[in-house]
């Protein structure tokens, strides 16, 4: 993180960059949207043909591709929309209900 915003809650106008400019491009990567989802994608790596269709159609840039292969889903950001499962030509992605870990609910 180039721009330290951990204390931003107590900044006065003197500490904010001028004109509401955000000096660190792409820093929304530090903002978790994974908590939005109620189901998450699970990929069967054996049946996956690495066609990369899920990667090109993911709205949240949450299909992690390394060396031309899907390796994981970015669960910090995946919103569970289910498009990856829908576009997969071999249907190797299942959307499974996101378990609820809160003790009050269990």
């Amino acid at each position, binding site marked *: 993180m180039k*721009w330290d*915003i951990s204390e*931003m809650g107590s900044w006065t106008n003197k500490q904010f960059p001028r004109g*509401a400019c*955000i000096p*660190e*491009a*792409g*820093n*929304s*990567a*530090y*903002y*978790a*949207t994974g908590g*939005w*989802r109620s189901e998450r994608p699970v990929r069967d790596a054996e049946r996956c043909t690495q*066609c*990369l*269709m899920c*990667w*090109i*159609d*993911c*709205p*949240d*840039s*949450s299909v992690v*591709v390394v060396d*031309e292969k899907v390796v994981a889903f*970015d669960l*910090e*950001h995946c*919103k*569970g*929309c*289910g*498009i990856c*499962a*829908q*576009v997969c030509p071999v249907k190797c992605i299942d*959307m499974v209900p996101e378990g609820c870990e809160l003790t009050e609910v269990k």
Partner: protein
Amino acid sequence: MANLKELSHRDDRLAGGHRLCAGCGASIAVRQVLLGAGLEPVVVGCATGCLEVSTSIYPYSSWKTSFIHNAFENSAATVSGVEAAFQALKRVGKIPADKKMKFVAFGGDGGTYDIGLQSLSGAMERGHDMVYVCYDNGAYMNTGIQRSSATPKGAWATTAEVGPAQQGKIQRRKDLTQIMAAHNIPYVAQASISHWKDLTSKAEKAFSVEGPAFLNVFAPCPRGWRIPSSQSVEIAKLAVQTGFWPLYEVEDGVFRQTVRVANRKPLEEFLKPQGRFKHLFTPGNEALLAEIQSDVDKAWDDLIGRCATE
């Protein structure tokens, strides 16, 4: 024209952590456009709307590149100013003469077909070396699904309601892509998130051409269209397969269909899965449905007639 494996090496310039809805077609459109744009640095401008609001909530930016938002109707004018600065600073030697940079303005159909039309037209007419990308989700989605001139005839919208006196939007859609073709700019194209190969190669062309280019990208909105979030790509595919959203390009004035559809599916297959069209299938609306189908048929025939035969 890169394949997916080649594209996967490129930097995804839209970061995760944006606040667009799950399944948003606009984010898919942006990712595919910017992946197709190549490797040169890009300055992105965006009109007020879903895309802008969700990707630049202070202090977070989802743009892994320079970004500017100004107002609703002027992303084209704003980016034309950025491009002008680039030309001037090169001319005076503050930027090396061989430096390459690309300039792209995004806008929804609201900020493009309606309030932004003048600014878009002016920027294109002036010949700036920039790309304008419209993500067409068929209504003013960010403010609550109000109708735009891109909303299909018969669609429900919050300002084109359904009831005994009216069955959704009364007017036909405006054909913005053809309006832009009439500006005689080097490159104009209509694309869809359902056809990544077509879209990314059109983006590549748009960004490599010298002068103004315009892309109109079909970008479904699960929220506004009343479809499950997983169906955005599928419904866009049906739009193409029914002829509702033909995929074509206009390169130096020559029209060319880029994805052939030999036997168009009945428009119903595109309309029925969407909640915003459900009233069209109630008894009494048969004539309206037929009218909408024949509008699509006519537009299709007209367009095919203009396209070069190869």
